[in-house]
């Protein structure tokens, strides 16, 4: 009972760190864009800081969370965040057509990362085995 609670708490912490990594990844993407080819110092420093933060948080989270699932969530937050906030920070427009195709691409990469997950593979196999049993 106690062991289960401890595991749950640890996983909750790992998921929070993963979400944080996703948020930092959005900051990284926006900063890299804003740096104008690393010619603007403030955005460049911001990009470097977010780069280290996102990498650190992702590595911490992936110690507890399955790699495929972790990457899927991280990449999903990063790309949705960059697409949504790009027009807020810069002179960019997100037309409905562009938003649609971006959503397709992001869905594809999230699906792909989940497909790489050994954990989900095992689970679906187990489910199939379970289903065939009387």
């Amino acid at each position, binding site marked *: 009972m106690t062991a289960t609670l401890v595991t749950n708490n640890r996983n909750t912490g790992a998921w929070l760190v993963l979400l944080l990594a996703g948020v930092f990844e959005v900051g990284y993407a926006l900063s890299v864009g804003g740096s104008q080819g690393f010619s603007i110092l403030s955005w460049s420093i911001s990009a470097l800081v977010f780069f280290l933060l996102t990498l650190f948080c992702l590595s911490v989270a992936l*110690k507890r969370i399955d790699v495929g699932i972790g990457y899927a969530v991280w990449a999903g937050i990063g790309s949705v965040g960059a697409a949504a906030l790009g027009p807020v*920070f810069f002179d960019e427009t997100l037309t409905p057509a562009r938003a649609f195709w971006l959503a397709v691409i992001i869905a*594809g990469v999230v699906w792909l990362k989940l497909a790489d997950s050994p954990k989900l593979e095992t689970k679906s196999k187990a489910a199939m085995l379970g289903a065939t049993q009387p």
Partner: protein
Amino acid sequence: MSWLYLGIAVIFEIAVALAASKAQGFTRLWWTITTLITGAIATFFLSLALLTFDVGVGYALWVSVAGVGITILGAMLFGQRLNWRQGAGIGIVIVGVVGLQLGGAA
């Protein structure tokens, strides 16, 4: 030119993923350094690509094409065939990238 920069950024991002997986939670020094260096190079070329692409578009293209590359390279390295889920994911990404291009949105 922006597509060339994006392509170089993608290749280095694939290298980042490989190095990061070898770094084992950044406990191995040289793989950690390799991760940081390849990451810095990938970031630099991404920033050059983003001089032309909008952030949302360029970033999504970068992450997704690198993701496809990592999956294909991973299958090649371990001598495995891609399963139907991976094939479908690659297909969805390609449809999205082509759609974005044809729509003139990229």
